[in-house]
């Protein structure tokens, strides 16, 4: 924890020296105070944020073991679900009524469900849905949000107010309600949830990116670029967007668990994944009446959701503290 604190202190120091512009890690704390010229020179010349972000993340993992464990867990989850056809011990859809509602055994590590299907195999396949719906709609909605936030922040005026008022309206709705409305209109199913989550949650990203752009626009190097006649598109691409990357990485890590929870909640309500396909939320719903008979197979999908979401949240916290402490509130 102490090292984490030190890192943050270093970030804050760097931020102060560079005028709110922090890209460096811990390595230059000792001489930091004597080096403002270096930082400014760096800000004016080419910025290579990818490299420094990589280094920052590396040092974060070195000092924060919890974040490292979380990241490993997430990668592991992704691997086993992607390779589910190879890893899964049984076919997740084959029913065997003679084997229904069995407890854990060597043959079925997590037991079987109401139709005699292997719970572990179903969880591996169900995890594909949870991760898919957790990750891809987040990417889509953040791309939309980034684009709209850039436009709003950079062009200002009418277009800014239109985009931000639209964001206000969307953010007034709880995301679960919006998803329910959309699924009422488009019909139940995964595709609907996928679309709902992609369309609904861009507003938060747009707000953050917009405020980032507003502060970056005032920076000397952006003014300099504008004054020598660099095109707006180029300024956005070369100067604004790279500086938003750390924030976007943090936002991504923090948005994914929310989407995983929303998907599982909707599937639990019967609005999401439809049988015979499955997701962790749907598995909890299907097996809840057998809780007393087969507690292990009923509780397993829920624990997995919890583990995955906790891992994403720990990683998101660590990344935020490292890359963008200003997102804290």
């Amino acid at each position: 924890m102490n090292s984490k604190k030190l890192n943050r202190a270093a970030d804050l120091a760097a931020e102060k020296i560079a005028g709110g512009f922090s890209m460096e890690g811990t390595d230059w704390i000792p001489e930091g105070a004597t080096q403002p010229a270096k930082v400014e020179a760096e800000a004016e010349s080419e910025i290579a944020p990818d490299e420094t972000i990589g280094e920052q993340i590396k040092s974060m993992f070195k000092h924060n073991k919890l974040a490292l464990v979380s990241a490993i867990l997430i990668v592991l989850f992704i691997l086993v679900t992607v390779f589910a056809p190879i890893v899964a011990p049984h076919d997740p859809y084959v029913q065997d009524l003679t084997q229904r509602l069995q407890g854990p055994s060597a043959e079925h590590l997590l037991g079987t469900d109401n139709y005699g299907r292997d719970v572990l195999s179903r969880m591996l396949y169900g995890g594909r849905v949870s991760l898919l719906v957790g990750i891809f709609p987040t990417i889509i909605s953040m791309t939309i949000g980034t684009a709209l936030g850039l436009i709003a922040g950079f062009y200002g005026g009418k277009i800014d107010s239109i985009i931000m008022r639209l964001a206000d309206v969307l953010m007034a709705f709880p995301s679960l309600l919006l998803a329910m409305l959309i699924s009422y209109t488009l019909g139940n199913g995964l595709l609907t949830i996928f679309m709902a989550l992609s369309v609904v949650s861009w507003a938060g990203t747009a707000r953050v990116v917009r405020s980032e752009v507003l502060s970056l626009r005032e920076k000397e190097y952006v003014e300099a670029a504008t004054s020598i006649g660099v095109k707006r598109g180029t300024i956005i691409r070369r100067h604004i967007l790279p500086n938003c990357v750390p924030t976007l990485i943090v936002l991504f890590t923090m948005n994914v668990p929310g989407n995983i929870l929303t998907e599982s909640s909707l599937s639990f309500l019967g609005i999401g994944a439809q049988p015979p396909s499955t997701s962790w939320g749907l598995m909890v719903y299907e097996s809840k009446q057998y809780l007393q008979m087969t507690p292990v197979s009923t509780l397993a999908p829920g624990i997995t959701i919890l583990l995955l979401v906790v891992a994403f949240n720990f990683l998101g916290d660590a990344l935020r503290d490292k890359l963008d402490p200003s997102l804290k509130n």
Partner: protein
Amino acid sequence: MLKYVIKRILISIPLMIAVVLVVFLMLQVLPGNPVSVMMGEKASPDVIERVTEQMGLNDPVWERFIDYLVNAVQGDLGTSYKLSRPISDLIADSFPNTVKLAITSALVSWIIGVFAGIISAIKKDTLLDRFLMGFSLVGISLPVFWGAMLLQFIFGYTLGWLPISGYSTPAHMILPAVILGWTSSGTIARLTRSSLLGIMENDYIRTARAKGLDESLVVVKHGLKNAMIPVVTMMAMQFASLLSGAVITESVFGIGGIGVLMVSAVNTRDMPLLQGSVIFSTMIIIIGNLVADILYSFLDPKIREQ
């Protein structure tokens, strides 16, 4: 100050109208004829045509929207297709149950959240701090439906201490309030901790300590008083969100509140009911955020002076 409050209220009105418009458009315009959606594929075209005409759905969209808005302002949200009762009555019946759950779970959330946050901040970087923050993060990450089931299993089935479903006695409220309160407490705990830690770095705290004031007095009198400003704001927003209906918790525990009303509207394809209850719910959130904003400006002397 008064000017700010009035301005803030005036800003909320177009937002509310926009929300009604979004719900209206999504449910009544996008999917084609809401009557055929409601009645399913088996309904004959004649019947659909007659019902459509009866419900005034052949009028232009804008006319219908204005009518709906004017009626909604007067408290008339239309009539449920399936239950044939005014939607405002249905909401009036279920809202008290949601309020009961909101109050109890907010109490759980605030007590756990504030205490965990304060202790964490005072014992910063100790094992206790890490445990409490871990506990909060698990609360934030917990799938409510699953946590609720687990509580039902342990305290309902296995130990038999508490009822697992329904809402007739105060004992029925304990499990739902605990699970909903725990999942909500994480945000409060984290905010309390970071806010208090931020405040404790201020010069006037150092002065208070230098005066030889007892540390607990420093924390309570000088630290907490300021640290709680954002926390109270968050509490107001959270309470609004709880009042807007806890869809999952109400469903798992069979509490007939606004959340269950919305789910049943989706399942029975009762469009006016879904429309009315979602609008009601979202209005509560908007009003809650409005109150939170005003509360914040009122509590923070720096803003109040302006």
